[in-house]
């Protein structure tokens, strides 16, 4: 009322007696009046010429949302998309890596022969160029495959069907069914996912969707998961099945993310964000034939290159910074090693180590640079000088004491830690609240520490037992 000015108040006083008493009745009559007219006009302007047989579309819709097949199909499509991504990205990634690291060698040669100072060579080549090369070769192929596939499903009209299937779970969690759509957007990029939460009207449910969006694995984290899954899970079985097993590992992590979303939504809606589920309306648009050419161009040019560019812009300085940290010494120990040393006890408890935690921390600006920083951290610890393939990466990680437990904990912590800087900034913009922004970082972080602790200690106990039995 405070916004109404004096004349407004006068008018209200003058007009109030003229207003009929039953407001809801008036609103109904207004809407009915408009619809009557709309019906009248459309009856005259639209002619049904041939009776349209929507049978195929209806059947497809019936199958995609059917009682028995709805959920299996969702799971199957998710697995299929990831399998194509992982299998398809494998070879181009190797190719890119060998190409880019061949260039690195040439650049190194050039720098050495031209007599450049070694710190300059270090910062530019071993810092900046190397992390760029890793970001490009690890990220580009999976994204160039994942984005078009995802856009294909989006253009077809499949996403609202997923929301339709999943709504019951979200309803029970006290959340909004459209949260599912915002999660789908989060698979591309969490910042975009957080913005898309605007489709949820109820402030309470929108906040729940915003706070849990980070549990959708974004494209900055997919490549890390894919690489680690390929290296550690993939090698547990014969080569022919390795990408299948890697896919299943990634699918399992995604499923865990979805479960976490539901669980955290449930807890939030019963504690900090109490309230009854609000009104839910979801339009299910007709299936549309996707425009393949358009999808390919748009998702490659706009999304892939955009995300890659962002990664590159952040990776280059981060790489340089990491190199400097790793090569500045305080009494014989590099600053990097010093910090790693502090963090190591915590890291060990969580099944990881200090360098891994640093990589997560320095990865705050963008999750994409986690892997390059990790590699640089290990390389500066001096075990090997060249690293030009996933195989070499595997050796490097094994050399630093990694086991499948380490890989599992890293994958879990990648799912459950603070959202990246861009996402946090977006959360702040959307909620206009520092408190909720901090919560958005603390909730997943606390969960991540808890889960990795439990998994690590549990795995150790199992290891002890099995060692005891065999010994």
């Amino acid at each position, binding site marked *: 009322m405070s916004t109404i000015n004096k004349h407004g108040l006068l008018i209200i006083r003058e007009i109030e007696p003229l207003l009929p008493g039953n407001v*809801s009745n008036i*609103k109904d009559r207004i809407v009915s009046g408009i619809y009557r007219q709309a019906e009248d006009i459309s009856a005259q302007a639209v002619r049904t010429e041939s009776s349209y047989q929507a049978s195929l579309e209806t059947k497809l819709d019936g199958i995609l949302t*059917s009682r028995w097949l709805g959920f299996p199909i969702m799971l199957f499509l998710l697995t299929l998309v990831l399998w194509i991504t992982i299998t398809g990205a494998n070879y181009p990634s190797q190719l890119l890596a060998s190409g880019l690291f061949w260039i690195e060698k040439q650049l190194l040669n050039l720098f050495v022969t031209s007599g450049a100072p070694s710190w300059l060579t270090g910062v530019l080549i071993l810092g900046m160029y190397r992390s760029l090369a890793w970001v490009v070769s690890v990220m580009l192929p999976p994204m160039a495959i994942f984005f078009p596939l995802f856009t294909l499903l989006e253009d077809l009209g499949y996403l609202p069907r997923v929301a339709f299937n999943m709504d019951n779970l979200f309803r029970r969690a006290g959340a909004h069914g459209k949260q599912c759509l915002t999660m789908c957007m989060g698979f591309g990029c969490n910042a975009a996912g957080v913005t898309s939460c605007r489709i949820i009207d109820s402030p309470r449910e929108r906040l729940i969707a915003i706070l849990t969006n980070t549990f959708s694995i974004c494209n900055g984290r997919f490549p890390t998961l894919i690489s680690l899954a390929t290296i550690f899970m993939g090698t547990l079985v014969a080569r022919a099945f390795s990408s299948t097993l890697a896919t299943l590992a990634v699918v399992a992590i995604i499923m865990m993310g979805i479960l976490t979303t539901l669980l955290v939504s449930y807890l939030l809606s019963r504690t900090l964000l109490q309230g009854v589920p609000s009104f839910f309306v*979801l339009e299910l*648009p007709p299936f549309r034939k996707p425009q393949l050419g358009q999808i390919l161009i748009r998702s490659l040019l706009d999304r892939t290159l955009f995300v890659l560019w962002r990664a590159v812009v952040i990776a280059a300085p981060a790489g340089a910074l990491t190199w400097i940290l790793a090569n500045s010494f305080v009494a014989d120990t590099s600053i990097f090693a010093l910090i790693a040393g502090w963090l190591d006890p915590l890291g060990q408890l969580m099944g990881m180590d200090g360098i891994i935690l640093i990589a997560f921390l320095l990865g705050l600006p963008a999750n994409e640079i986690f892997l390059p920083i990790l590699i640089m951290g290990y390389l500066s610890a001096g075990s090997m000088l060249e690293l030009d393939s996933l195989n070499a990466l595997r050796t490097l990680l094994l050399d630093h004491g990694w086991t499948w437990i380490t890989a599992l904990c890293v994958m879990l912590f990648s799912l459950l830690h603070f959202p990246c800087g861009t996402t946090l900034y977006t959360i702040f913009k959307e909620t206009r609240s520092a408190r909720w922004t901090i919560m958005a970082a603390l909730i997943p972080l606390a969960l991540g520490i808890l889960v990795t602790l439990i998994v690590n200690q549990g795995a150790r106990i199992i290891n002890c037992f099995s060692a005891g039995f065999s010994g």
Partner: protein
Amino acid sequence: MVIPNSLSLIDIPVGDSARVVNILTIGANRRRLLDLGLVPGSRVEVIRRSPAGNPTAYLIKGTLIALRNEDARQILVDTN
């Protein structure tokens, strides 16, 4: 005034259609339902239920729209 023992939208089996008689929802949500075309007198066809039986998809003025069952319960209909 509510007609006793009248049907609500969730009582209509999948595949059948009904005519909206009254909406019991109040406030902004009532407005939302009206805006979707659920005005008294308009026809609604029940198309399908989601795997868990809730929500349900209805064909309302040419568009497929999903409503949760507790919201649909507030929409009174008759079947002729």
